[in-house]
């Protein structure tokens, strides 16, 4: 196990502490966090980050949606962790909370995480049994998210 962990450290896999998908109306479609710390805290963090997201997407003032970047970048850092945001064209927001101690974070890695999330989310949307606005209960989506989360072992 320790050997595995060390291997992980060497590989530098970016692990999120909390991943959330928020609908256009700002209610959560999916939120999953590492259970070690209080999940309520993460919920609160994600909720506050929504304000920043709104500010970023509305304050741009561009008339055309396609000119707005989907990846919002670092929304705001706290002393414990950093919050990254991503919004789709349909105003569905993805929020990733990453531990601040993970200093070797590269923007590309966060982007790739969001891209994976977005693809997985699209697949969920394509499922006719999924009604937009429902909670996301897809196992495939869960697996993708779980792969990104810090393993609490």
């Amino acid at each position, binding site marked *: 196990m320790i050997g595995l962990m060390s291997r992980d450290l060497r590989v530098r896999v970016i692990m999120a502490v909390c991943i959330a998908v928020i609908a256009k109306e700002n209610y959560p479609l999916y939120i999953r966090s590492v259970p070690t710390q209080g999940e309520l805290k993460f919920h609160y963090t994600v909720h506050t980050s929504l304000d920043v997201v709104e500010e970023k997407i509305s304050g741009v003032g561009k008339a*055309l949606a*396609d000119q707005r970047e989907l990846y919002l970048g670092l929304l705001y850092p706290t002393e414990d962790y950093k919050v990254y945001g991503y919004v789709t064209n349909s105003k569905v927001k993805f929020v990733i909370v990453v531990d601040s101690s993970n200093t070797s974070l590269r923007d590309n890695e966060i982007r790739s995480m969001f891209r994976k999330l977005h693809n997985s989310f*699209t*697949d969920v949307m*394509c*499922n*006719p*049994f999924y009604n937009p606005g429902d909670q996301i209960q*897809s*196992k495939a989506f869960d697996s993708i998210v779980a792969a990104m989360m810090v393993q609490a072992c």
Partner: protein
Amino acid sequence: MDQGAAAGTGGTFISLSEVEQKCYSGLYALCQPDGTGTPAAGKVAELFRASQLPADTLHQITEVCGAKRLGYFGCGQFYVALKLIAAAQAGLPVRLESVGGELPLSVFVGITHDPEMRYPAHPLTNESQPHIPGSAPRPPADRPVFRHPESITDKQEAWSPPRSPGISPPRSPSAYRSYPYSAQRNGTDALLAYDGKLLSRSSVSQENSSPSHYFVRLQPEPPPITRVLSVDYSEDPWRITEEQREYYTNQFKSLQPDLNALILGTTAKNFFTKSKLPIPELSHIWELSDVDKDGALTFSEFCIAFHLIVARKNSYVLPETLPPTLKPGYVDQGVTLSETTQPLIVLIDTVTPPASQPVRKQSIISPQDNITALSASPCELSSVDRQVTSRPGVNTCKQDTRDERRQSEFSPKRLPDASEKLIQRVSTLKPDSPQELDAIMKSRTRPRSYSSTSIDDAMKKAEEPPTPPPRPQKTHSRASSLDLNKLFQQSGQASKSGWLPPPPALPPRPPATQIFSFQHGSNKNTQKAVQQPNFADFSRFREKETSTPPQRPGMRGGLSTEDLAPPKTDPSAALLGHAPQKPVRRKLHPDSQSATPPSGTPSSAATLTKSTQRLPSKQKREIQMAIRKNRETNAVLTRLNSELQQQLKVVHRERVTLESQLDLLRPVTSA
């Protein structure tokens, strides 16, 4: 053999009758091709599968006969197993005691019957006895029946899943029996009936005495229920059998007649919801079966989904990932699935009704977006398809508005071509979608009268300046004055700007433009108004014109250029509106020259009203005017031609004289 059997069973004496001995030895020989003495596990598995018994029965048999203990089928175990199979087929519980009694021979489907006949019908039960002695030579022909040769271990593993959910909610055996298994075996039967049959399959393992026997030799024949379906299914629940595939095919056809086309998500959703599975499970099944993640099911995906639903109904735990045997590439049933062929067709057929929103802006934006961000998301492409379908409708609306702004050179014939092209493209395949978008891009080179995205604006702006607005009136002038400079200028203009035929752009033009042209050209209305009552005269007059000697054009040209200047300075008027005005005005000149008093001024108001009344027939008149214009331009061109020829002759003569003079002078200079 009996001793062997006795040893294998731990003391239970099992006697084999002569017939049994013959048959079983044949089977035994079959199962050990290498003659090592132990039947090959695979062959044994095949044989057991051929017995058409439910998986857990076979499992039980394996256990009972001691092969599990030993890990292989010894001779004794083999024979005991065969006897137990016979017992099971006779409806007796799988226990050693049952083999003690007199039993009919165990019958194996694949071995005793044709490979195609997965469902031996009643007559087979009569034939089974004579078949059995001949079972030995039959087996080689039955190998193709077993499409998936498995090892015994796999079989046992496959059995375990059926075993674990073995305690399924027992369905009423009546439902099980009531399934009228006939030669049809699929298609018309409702999904529920199918489910009823399969659901009660699990109850067979417990009951083991239900009247669902295939080879009923001693018992009365119950309705031949497709236990084969369930048995084959239970061999490997993640494998689609032939009959299951047929059933799925028929169900697919009921939803979508074309086997190569897709079933839309909503259609599939409605269909699978009928199976009464909970939505999360259906959602999971969809996730598993929609391999290409396009929101629609191809035939193979549909089979997978259906199969998973059936499995779930039979209380199989759904796997997290698709089992390899269920993967679309695995099963090649000869149904050639071209997944990429025509997804658009299905999408468009069902999407065109809702895509009737003529939101032009979005329809233009979306393909742009998809061009730029073509991540090949199928949803995006399907939205493109929707937009594409709305485009033909939108384009037809665009035609009218486009005509307003388009220069007269742009033949409206090109518009119908573009829309036709689009419509044709719409019905093409998905790989052609970029081409569709290209066609749309091409069609967008025409100036639009509605606001669009920035890219379109840029394209428009790029297009508009280079488009020369060579009014036909410029070149159409009778400006073949005797002033050579002017003539050369004008001829140069004509050659440079390129004579564009006056557009017959009149038919698609909405009457609004006519009104617009009328209102705008109010200062010319006097002239124009005069023309209208004199249309009939003009035709006569034009004939006179064409016959006039070429010398006259000079004078007329002067007048016409002067008169044409004011209209040229009016750029904002609708060009097409100009078009009818110009020839009208040209006709006016001969009128004026022929000293027709421009008495139209007092009657301008009246003619205006008349013109408004004539709006409905405007288009017809426009066509006539266009024809007239063409004739006039022809006449003018011929005149021009003749004049130029004359000038050419003159110049040639001059050149000749100059050359002769030069020749005369040269010897003088050289000398």
